[in-house]
């Protein structure tokens, strides 16, 4: 089981990034061993296809679930096809997100929560 959290930094105390495709980094955690690894997101500056590129990256990493703020239509379709569950929550740190996930306090979403290009030009 591997969980990804979209983050604005590289460790568990960094703030979650509410954007999926254009988040600063993905922190991938194995909840059983608590080992975590940070990957900077190559699609931050992509001209297009940031959501699909990010979904491909998580699929290649063998991730089972992702916790983020919002999800757009292309990313949502790609993650669903990859069998990656999407959880959303508003704000907090990566550690908060993992605790909420473990405690079952956040639920999965199906479909997009925002329109295309929602995460562009907002920081």
């Amino acid at each position, binding site marked *: 089981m591997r969980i990804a959290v979209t983050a604005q930094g590289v460790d568990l105390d960094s703030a979650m990034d509410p954007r999926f495709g254009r988040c600063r980094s993905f922190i991938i955690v194995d909840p059983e061993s608590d080992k975590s690894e940070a990957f900077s997101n190559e*699609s931050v500056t992509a001209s*297009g296809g940031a959501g699909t590129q990010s979904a491909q990256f998580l699929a290649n990493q063998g991730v089972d679930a992702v916790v983020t703020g919002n999800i757009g239509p292309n990313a949502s379709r*790609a993650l669903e096809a990859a069998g990656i569950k999407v959880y959303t929550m508003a704000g907090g740190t990566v550690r908060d997100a993992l605790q909420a996930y473990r405690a079952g306090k956040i639920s999965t979403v199906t479909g997009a929560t925002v329109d295309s290009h929602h995460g562009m030009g907002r920081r």
Partner: protein
Amino acid sequence: MIVSVASGKGGTGKTTIAVNLALALEGTMPVDFLDCDVEEPNAHLFLHPVLETSERVTLPVPSVDESKCTGCGTCAEVCAFHAILSLGGRVITFPELCHGCGGCARFCPEGAISEVPREIGVVETGWAAGPAGQARGIRFVQGRVNIGTALAPPVVKAVRSKAGLGAGKDGGIVIIDSPPGTSCPVVASVKGSDYCLLVTEPTPFGLNDLALAVDMVREVGVPFGVVINRAGLGDDKVAAYCRQESIPVLLEIPFNRRYAACYARGGQLVSDFPELGDSLTGLWRRIRAAVGPLSESLPREGDTAR
């Protein structure tokens, strides 16, 4: 001879210059008018063309034969636009992200990907009536990209592929009304033209965006000059910039409320103000002198479909 009319800033008078240059030269040589501002074409408001043909513009997008696909992921690796993904052995496509490069079909080791057309816009051709109601004065081409489609350059290229006899030859003129700005649709409009007119206005915004447009035109290697519209409205900084950069200012059109009123009702400036017709004929002579004789055998990049 292909003359593109561009600007950095929008609303400086590209369409006004392009339309009235076409009207000033009509009858003296074959004139093709190409409205390449495919996101919001407006030259038809002034030229009132009778359209005769309408063709769909399509882009080749991938279609995957799942019985042949082995899920190797090569297609997803080669796609620069992340329009095709390989997820756990299953391939999914996002046609609206696809730029139609054909890379996925080319590199699929199983031959599982074919290309199917996706409609992204339309290109229309016709004629604007000539003086005294002649049926065929200016040959007119315009493109329109479908609403919600973020892919103007292929539609621009489709418009340019309809350039007729005047393209690349000395005996006629193809006038391209470009979109504003400096991005891909503008590059697709300006690239491969013999000369580019950059229309600006003597204001801080006009100057800022002119400098961006100059960088773009220099990058694509097209000779260019500046037309200052609404001259006298602002300051002298555009003129000073052009002097400093050794850019020829080919024409200044004075700021005149009556010109604006003519434009606003869809009028043709050269009919209402004959002195502007003379100015535009002079502009053409200066372009002609700057370009020199054309070689007819040069291939033009703007004419390719992809």
